[in-house]
């Protein structure tokens, strides 16, 4: 009978699933996952309000320049920005001469080959060079940092759940292990190569607190460089490095959506006019 074939196939899948449920029930597979230190003490990022947030968001170039200064003086000793070139800094308000100067004075030079001997050496950076970072390869990066590779920052705010808010929370989130956690999960406290940070995925991060004190950086525009401020500014800067076309996108988007709303209205009126009198 034509009805039996599909029912037999269906019965096979249903029975296999029921069997899976039954075996789970009898072998303790029904238990809810155990409570772990991470589950209990991990914190979601704190809210960060940046001028680039929202559909009409724009960058504050002063803030981006402050953020670049934080990156330069605090982060660049370990973290690269390899998708960004010095010339791209024109986009945060530096002029051509300033960009050339930043490139020329940048500590990490470009690898190059000597014209005469072919020997591998280095040369000062020029604007079209990228921010390649201090380590020549991954092995060197890990060796210098207890086995943990400092990630590239170009896309960090798009590569982490929580984005800029996560970066901001993480960088200001270093704190002592809560007593409750120490009591419940004594094995979860960091060893001497890690630091406790509840905003980090598994609570213990290999990076030491990068912002140690207020005034660590002296801002050129005179803004007081509290840890909060530095964290906000570098998060804003990293939002720009991840999405330098954000402002173009918002502007084009506003024009496109307004155009399409008008077009939709016209298209609707045209449709109604075509169907006028035609019941359906």
């Amino acid at each position: 009978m034509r009805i039996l074939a599909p029912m037999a196939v269906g019965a096979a899948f249903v029975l296999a699933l029921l069997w899976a449920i039954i075996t789970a029930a009898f072998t303790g597979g029904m238990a809810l996952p155990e409570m772990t230190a991470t589950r209990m003490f991990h914190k979601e990022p704190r809210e960060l309000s940046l001028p680039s947030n929202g559909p009409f968001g724009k960058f504050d170039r002063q803030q981006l320049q402050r953020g670049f200064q934080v990156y330069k003086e605090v982060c660049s000793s370990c973290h690269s920005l390899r998708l960004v070139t010095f010339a791209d800094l024109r986009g945060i308000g530096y002029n051509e001469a300033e960009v050339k100067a930043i490139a020329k004075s940048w500590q990490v030079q470009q690898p190059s080959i000597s014209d005469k001997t072919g020997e591998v050496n280095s040369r000062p950076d020029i604007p079209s060079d990228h921010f390649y970072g201090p380590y020549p390869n991954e092995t060197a990066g890990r060796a210098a940092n207890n086995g943990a590779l400092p990630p590239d920052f170009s896309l960090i705010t798009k590569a982490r759940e929580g984005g800029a808010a996560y970066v901001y929370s993480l960088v200001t989130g270093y704190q002592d292990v809560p007593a409750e956690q120490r009591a419940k999960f004594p094995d979860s406290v960091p060893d001497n190569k890690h630091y406790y940070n509840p905003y980090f995925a598994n609570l213990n991060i290999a990076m030491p607190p990068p912002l140690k004190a207020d005034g660590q950086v002296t801002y050129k525009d005179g803004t007081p460089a509290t840890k909060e401020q530095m964290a906000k500014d570098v998060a804003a800067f990293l939002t720009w490095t991840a999405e330098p076309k954000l402002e173009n996108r918002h502007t084009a988007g506003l024009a496109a959506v307004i155009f399409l709303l008008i077009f939709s209205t016209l298209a609707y009126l045209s449709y109604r006019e075509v169907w006028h009198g035609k019941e359906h």
Partner: protein
Amino acid sequence: MSFPWAKHYEPKSDFTKWIDARLPLPRLIHGAVGAGYPVPRNLNYFWNFGFLAGLALMIQIVSGIVLAMHYAANGGVAFDSVEHIMRDVNSGWFIRYAHATGASFFFIVIYVHIFRGLYFGSYKAPREMIWLLGVLIFLLMMATAFMGYVLPWGQMSFWGARVITGFFSAIPLVGEPIRQWLLGGFAPDDAALNRFFSLHYLLPFAILGVVILHVWALHIPGSNNPTGIDVKEEQDTVPFHPYYTAKDGFGVAVYLTFFAIVVFFMPNIVASPDNYIPANPMSTPAHIEPEWYFWPFYAILRAFTANAFGVPAKLWGVIAMFASIALLFFLPWIDTSPVRSGNYRPLFKKFFWILVVDILILGWMGKSPAEQPYVIISQLAAIYYFAHFLIILPIVSRIERPLPLPMSITESVLAKHAAQVNTAPALTGLSVQPAE
């Protein structure tokens, strides 16, 4: 089958007559989407989604060809080439986001289109071929989308490829050799990436070909309609142009509005942040999850957690996942009710809505981690899915008592309108004259 009252194409000018005698393309267009193709007058907005699917395909092809001018399919440079598109190529960010968003929108459209077919019985005779071609298009779309997602060579690209190609090793004996043949290696690497790029470029044109067959097959019986009743007389229909060209135009405008809102204001809303990290074969992401349109199937795959009847659990999962789509091919012969539309099948209608909720639950489970209580929920939801198509539908279609069907499409339109109209029939534009 063309309806006898269909307007015939009559070339008027010398030029159109010349063309008509040599390459009757205008005639074809007139008869397919022009004033010469009668379509039921009572189609609702769910019937817009076929045209929107065609539009979505065009957007993917155009944006994809442009992206291919700048993308480099080699492991060392693929990720950077995509960032080059985002940062350096003129309007590159727009084209990339349009292509990525376009894929998601294509699946939204196709799911609505499929559910329309399920509810209104569009898969039933004489439209079985349209349905089969449609399921084939769906499979090609899934293959294309999977390979496309690998191309940026991010963490999810790599690990998604690892997991999906890993399925094949579940097949006994030949599974592992097949897997290595697919990959050109032991794990996804340059060989896999290059061939995925080649095939990802090719398959959309295969889809285009099958879409042409799908529309051709549709034009034989003509469109189904919300009552499920066949077209009987001229006033059951309106010519495709201008009635449905105007309605599809409106549909396109609304679609593009939503599309633009996502592309320009929330382009990463369904993106996995892990895919902005370059692929690293040495480090697995915390949660490997496929793109949202695969979530229900991923849930079904993971629901089979025990060996049963001598078949290992992993193989059950793989077979069930493919079976969950393959069973759609058999639907016209599983559901034997002569009544097409769910509007007149009260028992079927109830189970249909349960199916919709069930698939949404499966989707949510596909995203969730493989731990309780998500496992038991996935298992129960998967049980319902297979039961619905393979056990419930055959029974329901044989025992249910459908509601009385209207005599014609026109009668149903009139009835609907009589319920809406208050007093003056002349204002409604539709009057009923008593028969002479």
